[in-house]
């Protein structure tokens, strides 16, 4: 019945067939027809937007501009996509680099409240709290995270907010897996220190 229905409604059959195509296959198809590229953009624009906001603390409009630039750059470099790599790692890598460039060039950084994404900010927040061995408020964690150095912030955001594994983070940041592991370990220690410092200063001012 599904196939009969699909035959009767071309839009549904188009939608079903697009959803069935893997990212990596869509890359190849995009070289022939950019409608397939539109599908790739739809799949990743939301995720990349959130990642950029979490990473560099910019506004939504700026994040959208960066996402747009990311996909334009990715389109130009489609023939450089290595099928041994996951498409998500590749597009995150381009988005990361664009975000870093924006951050360096931006004259003012409008920090937004991380609570704008409060429902989804820390999908692995409980994992992070468990790993840190500390019970702490989510808002304190986010505040401490925003004060970390970029190289520590990026690995924590990718690991605990974007839920990337070490190999994916290595592919995104173009760093060895061992280095990623060391950075995450060091970042967690720094995060605890930042949270404790903030907690102490809050107690002092009360």
């Amino acid at each position, binding site marked *: 019945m599904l196939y009969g229905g699909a035959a009767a409604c071309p839009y549904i059959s188009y939608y079903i067939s697009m959803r069935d195509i893997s990212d990596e296959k869509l890359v190849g198809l995009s070289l022939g027809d950019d409608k397939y590229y539109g599908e790739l953009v739809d799949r990743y624009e939301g995720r990349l937007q959130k990642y950029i906001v979490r990473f560099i603390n910019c506004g939504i409009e700026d994040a959208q501009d960066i*996402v*747009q630039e990311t996909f*334009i750059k990715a*389109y*130009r470099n489609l023939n*450089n996509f290595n099928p041994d790599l996951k498409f998500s790692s590749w597009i995150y890598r381009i988005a990361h680099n664009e975000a870093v460039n924006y951050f360096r060039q931006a004259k003012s950084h409008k920090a937004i409240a991380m609570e704008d994404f409060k429902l989804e900010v820390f999908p692995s927040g409980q994992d992070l709290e468990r790993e840190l061995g500390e019970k702490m408020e989510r808002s304190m964690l986010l505040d401490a995270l925003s004060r970390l150095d970029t190289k520590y912030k990026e690995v924590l955001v990718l690991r605990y907010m974007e839920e990337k594994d070490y190999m994916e983070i290595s592919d995104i940041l173009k*760093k060895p897996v061992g280095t990623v592991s060391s950075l995450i370990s060091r970042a967690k220690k720094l995060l605890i220190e930042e949270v404790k410092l903030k907690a102490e200063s809050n107690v002092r001012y009360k």
Partner: protein
Amino acid sequence: MSDISKKVIGEIHEKNIKPLSKRYFVVRSTAVWLSLLASVILGGIAVSTEDMFLERANGLINWVSLFLVFSVFLFMTLAYLNVRSTGDGYRYRTVWVVISIILIFIALAVLFRQEGIGDRVESRFDSHCPAISQYCPDRY
């Protein structure tokens, strides 16, 4: 289609953006690998021209060839950067990349020395670059 995907596809059509050709990336990758090969070979030659790296000088190194150290360091840096520019170069830790480059330099230096390439390069330097060769060790 979302707003962003419409904007992206719209900009692609408006500016007539096309994906860079596969050939462009192949040429670029080939250039990186050739550059890596050149820097490794030149580094091996630079090491092979210096006797003290390969022979004992009464158990002590009396002096350092400034130009040699500079050229070895330069080629090592170039080799390192070229490794990092390759597709998978980022996967390897810096310490292992540097150690591998040094070992390859030494292996090539031994090979070039056996073939007499080091001596030929050094004698060309003596005749064409006297200002630099004054810093090179005297040959026995």
